């Protein structure tokens, strides 16, 4: 095994169907034609299980879509995954539109369900609904409250670009006020439907200023003992304070930077079994109904090229922060067509 961590992350898009059409979405199609039966989903789950066992790793599986609650096989699949001792955490990534008490009651029966992540793209209804559709803000907020009231941990996913960057500070307030446990602010990757909106892509300076502002706020909230965790162990964050990366055992709340996980400890599976290195890097590297997970992991040219950091181009190639960054390969691909090129939003 090539990696040294003990958790492997699988993002599994079990359906392409969705009840929203968010402007910046990375999907291109939303139909059910290539979706798998429960039996085929079980076959893929067995492949995941086999790999985790072989690699002696714990699996964290995030089930998503499209909108995962639209797929009737979601709950039986979770029940199946829960039986596997190598899978220790399951998450669901949703838009929060159709979550009701009946769904919540079912969710409460799962022992390994660790969190429900809901996407919002504005701290204000106007900003969010412009991007995600009318009424989506109120429904998402109601779902956060329903889940929290029922003792289920929630996460908030925010995809930041020119149309919602102004809301970030208020979004942190919202997350704190709604007792959301984790906030992830992800950079917009203009692909799929979102490819039409390349002009929403933030400049280096905008990203730099934004990340600096978020780090300052996160450290302040950490000192105050606010339970919200703002995820910053991703690419580019290390540049804000390179010295921080040298301190061992920094609490996650104030930790900065993380190497892109492609080829190290993560994979993405689509609704038809196709495997991508990452959902935001739409290059098929196999299909789990036709190829073994080992064949994909050990022989994919794309994975090997990305694993070898000497292949990175431009300023990423010689950067001393590679172990805590290495740039977003998906953004490089979306903006330049070359997933090995330097991260176009790096301000260093």
């Amino acid at each position, binding site marked *: *095994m090539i990696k040294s961590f003990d958790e492997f992350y699988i993002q599994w898009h079990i359906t392409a169907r969705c009840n929203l059409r968010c402007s910046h979405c990375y999907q291109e199609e939303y139909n059910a034609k290539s979706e798998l039966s429960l039996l085929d989903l079980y076959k893929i789950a067995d492949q995941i299980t*086999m*790999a985790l066992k*072989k*690699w002696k790793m714990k699996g964290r599986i995030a089930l998503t879509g499209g909108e995962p609650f639209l797929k009737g096989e979601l709950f039986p699949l979770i029940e199946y995954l829960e039986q596997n001792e190598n899978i220790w955490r399951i998450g669901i990534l949703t838009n929060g539109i159709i979550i009701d008490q009946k769904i919540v009651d079912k969710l409460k029966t799962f022992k390994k369900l660790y969190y429900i992540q809901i996407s919002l793209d504005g701290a204000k209804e106007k900003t969010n609904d412009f991007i995600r559709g009318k009424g989506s803000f109120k429904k998402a907020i109601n779902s956060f409250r329903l889940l929290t009231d029922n003792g289920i941990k929630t996460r908030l996913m925010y995809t930041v670009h020119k149309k919602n960057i102004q809301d970030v500070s208020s979004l942190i307030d919202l997350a704190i006020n709604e007792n959301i446990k984790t906030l992830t602010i992800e950079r917009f990757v203009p692909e799929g439907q979102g490819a039409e909106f390349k002009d929403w892509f933030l400049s280096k300076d905008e990203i730099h200023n934004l990340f600096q502002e978020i780090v300052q706020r996160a450290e302040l909230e950490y000192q105050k003992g606010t339970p919200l965790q703002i995820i910053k162990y991703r690419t580019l964050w290390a540049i804000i304070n390179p010295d921080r990366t040298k301190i061992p055992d920094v609490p996650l709340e104030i930790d900065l930077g993380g190497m892109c996980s492609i080829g190290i400890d993560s994979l993405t599976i689509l609704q038809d079994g196709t495997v991508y290195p990452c959902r935001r890097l739409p290059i098929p590297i196999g299909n789990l109904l036709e190829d*073994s*997970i*080992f*064949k994909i992991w*050990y*022989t994919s040219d794309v994975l*090997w090229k990305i*694993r*070898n950091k*000497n292949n990175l181009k431009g300023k990423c190639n010689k950067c001393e922060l590679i172990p805590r960054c290495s740039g977003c390969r998906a953004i490089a691909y979306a903006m330049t067509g070359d997933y090995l090129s330097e991260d176009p939003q790096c301000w260093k």
Partner: protein
Amino acid sequence: MLEINKILQLKEEYILFKFDVGNGKFWLFNIENGDSFKLNQTSYNMLSLIDGKRSIEEINKCLIDKFSNKNRDLILKDFKELIKRMRQEKIIEERK
């Protein structure tokens, strides 16, 4: 006893891989059950010659050509041992 006219090959579930970083890292992967073996460069080079086309005798000649007289006996001995082990582990087989 090694029959030098035999032609051997890696079983189809095994692949050899060279990772071009530093001086190179060398692996043998089983893509069915996920087994992986880290190799040194010499073992990698030897296994690369077991390609289902060359006989053991031909591979021996290749190795002799590649290495100086000084190392020749040692290399041939290592190759013989590698084949023995790979056969025991069912990693290589006679060409069908």
